[in-house]
């Protein structure tokens, strides 16, 4: 079941560093007839890797505040980022089921006049896209991506920790492949399909980040993929912006274009590269 309108939670990475991904998301949702409202006044989700490692209490309280903002609008919360989704969904499930924790959070939130009630769901963009259904999505395809062979990088936090995931295929998510096939592309598997991209430790240990990335790219190249598609902005940044630096190490003759999942659909739906701001990609995308 999909709602007709969602509150779009922006997070940090997309609005600050890759707003062209937000553009693609808004175009695709408009084509599908899904109304979104920008959720205003949100903070960082207290990301699951770095910032949550600084305070569990800040994670719970600010997560609850972000969800409460959607509750105040009376709309389900929609996230276009794996990290934000994993975080806010985990907080939501946990707070809905734990009265003592909810009371502790609300005792803090009362200082700023807000209350977490647990009345709205937290949704990931690709879950919504899949729930729109094959017929609806295929019906909008004006430019089938018949020349594309897509390797999916679902990203760790799309479905992990699986304890809290609403995805039925949480252990091995196939949602990106499914959407790619609806867009007319072929899909391939590769040996590290559910492997971490390594981006999140770049500030701590760049050599680990580069090794993770080059191992992933080598496996993708060996699969014969022509394009990489991801629903995660952190993976997108690593694979697109970091790729040129590890080409030799990964044994790639030329870079493989990387698309955010809604960029792929927007191209299939007939939007052009200029409208989508694809010039901001570091690896060029040609149609």
């Amino acid at each position, binding site marked *: 079941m999909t709602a007709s309108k969602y509150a779009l939670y*922006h997070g*940090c*990475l997309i*609005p*600050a*560093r890759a*707003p*062209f991904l*937000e*553009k693609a998301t*808004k175009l695709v949702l408009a084509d599908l007839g899904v109304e979104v409202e*920008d*959720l*205003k*006044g*949100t*903070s*960082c989700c207290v990301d*699951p*890797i*770095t*910032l*949550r*490692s*600084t*305070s*569990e*209490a*800040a994670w*719970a*309280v*600010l997560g609850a*505040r972000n969800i409460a903002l959607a509750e105040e609008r009376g709309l389900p919360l929609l996230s276009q980022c794996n990290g934000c989704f994993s975080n806010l969904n985990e907080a939501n499930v*946990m707070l809905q089921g*734990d009265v*003592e*924790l909810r009371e*502790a959070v609300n005792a*803090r*939130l009362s*200082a*700023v006049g807000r209350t977490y009630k647990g009345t709205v769901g937290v949704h990931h963009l690709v879950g919504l896209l899949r729930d729109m259904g094959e017929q609806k999505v295929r019906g909008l395809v004006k430019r089938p991506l018949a020349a594309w062979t897509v390797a999916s990088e679902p990203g*760790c*936090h799309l479905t*992990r*920790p*699986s304890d809290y995931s609403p995805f039925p295929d949480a*252990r091995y998510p196939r949602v990106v492949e499914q959407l790619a096939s609806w867009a007319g592309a072929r899909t391939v598997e590769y040996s590290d399909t559910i*492997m*971490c991209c*390594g981006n*999140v*430790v770049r*500030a*701590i*240990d760049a050599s*680990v980040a580069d*090794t*993770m990335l080059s191992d992933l790219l080598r496996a993708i190249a060996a699969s014969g993929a022509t394009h990489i598609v991801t629903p995660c902005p952190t993976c997108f940044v690593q694979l697109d912006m970091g790729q040129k630096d590890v080409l030799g190490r990964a044994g790639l003759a030329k870079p493989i274009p990387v698309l955010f999942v809604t960029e792929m659909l927007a191209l299939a739906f007939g939007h052009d590269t200029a409208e989508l*701001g694809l010039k901001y990609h570091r690896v060029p995308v040609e149609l």
Partner: protein
Amino acid sequence: MSSASGHDPFERRLEARNRLDYCIQCGRCTSACPLALQIEWSPRRKLDEERLMGDDNLDNEAGAPVWTCLACYSCHESCEQRVHTAGIIRHIRQRVFEEGGAPEGVRKAAELFARTGMAFPVTGLTRKMRAELGLGDVPTTAADPAAMEEVRTLLAALGYTVPGEAGAPGKGAGG
């Protein structure tokens, strides 16, 4: 396991959820860990140290491999005992951060977060790109002083400070 600040509901819940006591040291987590292939690091051994030493081991974690954990949850997903290994590693980090032992990259991220409510800065380039794409201003604390004031109030009430920052002596982010 003991913990210096383990009396607030957030940390109490975290510890219950993490199921450290269910670990049977089988090592599936380390087999599944992509980091263990690259550096001297074993989630299995880290769980053992946490159980045996708890807070007494925190001094050894400053700037250590515990901070290189990718939080990819491969350990968590591979555990037959449903131990939340990635959550336990995160809990170690939280306590090391409080004691001022986090690497500079983490302290810088926390400082940006405490100042702007965001994990990434909104720059001139951000605004230029957004204008070109026909998108409005970033609808977050970065461009909303009233919302940022709320976040600042909440963080202050939680005692959230970044150890190592000027004017932030003593204990850091807590409950």
